[in-house]
């Protein structure tokens, strides 16, 4: 009996049929009886307080059931601590409808509840609100002088402040022959998943709730709801089997969840709150940032000094921080370093992790500076990276668990045809287009969170795996099924991975490219325990041939356990379950990173992106005509879904470099393009050839599966590679993103 290993196979998404037939249900799509529709009313000022609120006209409308405001809201927890979710940055969590204060433009100030959606939406316009306004600040660039150290808290563990300086940066920078001093500015960006944020709360009575929510973390939101509304954990069930994209926006509970639950408990009814696209802009976002980089190299092209100073925006109530400043030192050795990271509090909502938070911001600046320095030193940009290649982590001196970046450079450069490049800017022409080749390096941390899974062998000898984890489009369902199948030697058809439910064993929110490692390792650990249990149960069968077998003497394949030395002696899982009185054999276990062992190593994934752009000579429009990304991320469990993760993040890189930005009017304190017509993301016509290469990177240290995660590594190198290609085409260094044609005019 031989079955092909499922890990490494390009298995098509197991939920594919549900998604192409419209059967996959998202948070706003559960048909529950007697549903009330909630519609949010938003503040139209940026800072100040509500002086008068009149809900009379709204309430008088037929079909309106209630209007909840800070004046009549039901009791909720008063202690700030109760609002802290697993991803909350240091500070005080914003509580909607708590008081008359307005802290940011678009803040929710009322929730209208009606028997149908249209009535709720119409009535929201009838709520009269008067304000007393105060002066505000929303523009980072005008407030750089107010930059300060970020506050510290629980989340600082994952996002530590920059390391201490090494050597003497200022002197080394002064004394080096080649140097670059460059400033980079990024506006804010919004996640804008295609699915609107939504919560359907089912009021079960007796303080029990079933909640269909758009979230990346079912358990995180379960704990939040229980804490805030004083419910027992076991009485709150949060389900999110299908999530229409999130990209970080679902890491923390969003306000539609809070409002939906508040209304459901208050009115003892089932309540759905769906945000409009516009309502998803006074929302978490990637922060505005300012970066100044000063890099220097010696006559041989070796880096001598690196200074990266980064300033980002946060809100007035929480200190959202990212790891920005120190990435360069994980890539390149330099004896003199100075890394600084500061925050400016603005009258905006708290930013939040957005795909490759910190890294996407930093690597654009770092890799553009490297390109510029390569030109200063007269060295090919790829050769410059290779001269400064780090075999061990330069920032700590520790070895990497694995690092196949050199292979990424070589394979991607070969595939792309980098050697055809004439280094002279503006020298390559195709008809009326200037052609530019650019490249950049990417790096991301390989995270792993503790996670629990339950594995069950059923009477039919099949396996069920339970986890609270979500699949936000990453491929978790498919990938975890493959992992579980291989661990027990079953074909994937005999494995059911059941997920997206807070009732199932604990998982952190899906983020940080950490899920395959986190949930995958939990499966490995649980299946190991399950095997022992299966042997123990088999031994209890009268006259069992496994009587004397130890755990190492048996193997598992195709729903059977057999003796390694005598494979003909076997027992089926179904027989074991039957002997167990028909009761499924199950176990729940926790997988966790090997913290002690891994303390001696740096855990990173790497990438190299090579991009060709065409710039129209007259109109200056920029097109990414082709891009090649090579990624070293350990073992690739499913090349098909992993390719989609990388290609998708390459599209994000194109978007960040050339398309998307939330345009903030600092006089009004609000985003002016709060819709998908004016918040530009690439359309099909903007995307051309994207090629993905996975380096052969074996990693026996990092975790039981040798995986590093592929959610963000495909994005980080792309914006710089594009900006560098634009320079190569035009001779212009544009250091603000996105690069629109007008910047080249």
């Amino acid at each position, binding site marked *: 009996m031989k079955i092909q290993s499922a890990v490494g196979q390009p298995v098509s998404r197991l939920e594919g049929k549900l998604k192409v037939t*419209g059967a996959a249900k998202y948070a706003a799509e559960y048909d529950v009886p007697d549903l009330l529709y909630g519609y949010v009313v938003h503040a139209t000022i940026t800072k100040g307080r509500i002086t008068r609120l009149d809900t009379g006209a709204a309430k008088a409308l037929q079909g309106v059931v209630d209007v909840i405001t800070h004046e009549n809201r039901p009791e909720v927890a008063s202690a700030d601590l109760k609002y802290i979710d697993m991803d909350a940055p240091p500070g005080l969590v914003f509580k909607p409808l708590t008081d008359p204060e307005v802290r940011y433009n678009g803040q929710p100030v009322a929730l209208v509840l009606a028997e149908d959606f249209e009535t709720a939406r119409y009535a929201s316009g009838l709520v009269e609100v008067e304000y007393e306004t105060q002066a505000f600040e929303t523009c980072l660039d005008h407030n750089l002088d107010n930059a300060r150290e970020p506050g510290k808290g629980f989340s600082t563990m994952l996002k530590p402040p920059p390391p201490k300086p090494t050597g003497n940066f200022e002197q080394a920078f002064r004394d080096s022959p080649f140097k670059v001093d460059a400033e980079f500015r990024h506006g804010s960006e919004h996640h804008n998943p295609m699915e609107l944020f939504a919560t359907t709360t089912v009021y079960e009575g007796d303080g029990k709730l079933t909640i269909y929510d758009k979230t990346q973390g079912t358990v995180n939101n379960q704990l939040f709801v229980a804490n805030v509304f004083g419910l027992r954990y076991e009485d709150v069930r949060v389900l999110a089997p299908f999530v229409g994209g999130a990209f970080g926006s679902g890491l923390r509970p969003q306000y539609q969840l809070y409002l939906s639950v508040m209304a459901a408990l208050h009115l003892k009814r089932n309540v759905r709150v769906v945000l409009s*696209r516009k309502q998803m802009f006074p929302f978490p976002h990637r922060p505005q940032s300012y970066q100044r980089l000063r890099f220097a190299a010696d006559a041989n092209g070796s880096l001598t000094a690196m200074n990266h100073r980064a300033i980002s925006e946060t809100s007035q109530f929480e200190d959202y921080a990212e790891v920005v400043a120190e990435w360069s030192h994980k890539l390149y050795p330099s004896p003199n370093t100075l890394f600084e990271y500061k925050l400016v509090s603005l009258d905006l909502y708290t930013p939040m992790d957005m795909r490759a938070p910190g890294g996407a911001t930093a690597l654009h600046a770092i890799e553009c500076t490297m390109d510029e320095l390569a030109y200063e030193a007269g060295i090919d940009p790829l050769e410059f990276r290779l001269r400064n290649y780090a075999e061990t982590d330069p920032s700590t001196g520790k070895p990497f668990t694995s690092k196949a970046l050199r292979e990424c450079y070589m394979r991607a450069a070969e595939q792309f045809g980098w050697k055809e490049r004439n280094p002279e800017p503006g020298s390559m022409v195709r008809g009326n287009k200037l052609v530019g080749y650019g490249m950049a390096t990417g790096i991301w941390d390989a995270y792993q969170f503790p996670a629990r899974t339950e594995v069950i062998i059923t009477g039919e000898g099949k396996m069920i795996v339970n986890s609270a984890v979500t699949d936000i489009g990453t491929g978790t369902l498919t990938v975890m099924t493959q992992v579980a199948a291989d661990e027990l030697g079953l074909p994937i058809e005999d494995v059911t991975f059941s997920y997206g439910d807070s009732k199932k064993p604990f998982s952190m929110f899906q983020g940080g490219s950490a899920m395959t490692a986190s949930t995958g390792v939990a499966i490995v650990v649980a299946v190991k325990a399950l095997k022992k249990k299966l042997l123990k149960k088999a031994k209890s069968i009268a006259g069992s041939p496994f009587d004397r077998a130890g755990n190492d003497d048996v193997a598992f394949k195709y729903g059977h356990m057999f003796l390694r030395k005598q494979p003909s002696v076997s027992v089926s899982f179904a027989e074991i379950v039957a002997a167990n009185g028909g009761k499924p054999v199950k176990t729940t276990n926790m997988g966790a990173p090997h913290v002690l062992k891994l303390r001696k190593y740096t855990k990173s994934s790497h990438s190299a992106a090579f991009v060709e752009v065409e710039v129209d000579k007259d109109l200056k429009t920029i097109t990414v005509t082709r891009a090649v990304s090579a990624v070293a991320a350990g073992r690739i469990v499913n090349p098909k879904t992993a390719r989609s*993760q990388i290609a998708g993040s390459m599209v994000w890189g194109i978007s960040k470099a050339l398309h998307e930005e939330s345009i903030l009017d600092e006089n009004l304190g609000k985003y002016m393009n709060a819709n*998908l017509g004016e918040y530009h993301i690439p359309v099909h016509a903007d995307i051309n050839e994207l090629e993905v290469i996975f380096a052969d990177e074996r990693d026996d240290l990092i975790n039981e599966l040798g995986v590093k995660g592929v959610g963000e590594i495909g994005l980080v190198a792309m914006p710089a590679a594009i900006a560098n290609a634009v320079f190569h085409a035009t001779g212009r260094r544009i250091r603000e993103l996105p690069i629109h044609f007008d910047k080249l005019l």
Partner: protein
Amino acid sequence: MTTITLNVNKQTHTLEVLPWVSLLDALRDRLKLTGTKKGCDHGQCGACTVLCDGTRILSCLSLAVMKNGSEITTVEGIADGDALHPLQKAFIEHDAFQCGYCTPGQICSAIGMLAEGKARTRDEVKELMSGNLCRCGANTGIIDAIMEVKEGGGRE
């Protein structure tokens, strides 16, 4: 309230709606056909694309009463029973989606686009599909899937 008749996926539905109800909300909230997605409600994202008398339309920009008597096909009506449409199969094969939220709109739009017969090349297909946004960045997979079907390679 206005009484209208919609023939959706070959089934006739008579429903009472107020004139302000969009076709999208009528499908999702009244007929419980939630396969058609709401991504912007403003005609900017394409997630709500359905076929109306064979033509692709944005159901969020149509009032239900305007479509009285029309034949609507939503993503739930694309497959022939259990047998998937070649485009649906191609979407799965080419991994033409990640989160799946834009997928119903992409599929309905592609069927409408192919029926229009205007697109000859891959570039033209890309252009004519550009009203359907995908935030996961599955663009290449989506166009690959459509091209496979367009060129007659759709698997049975």
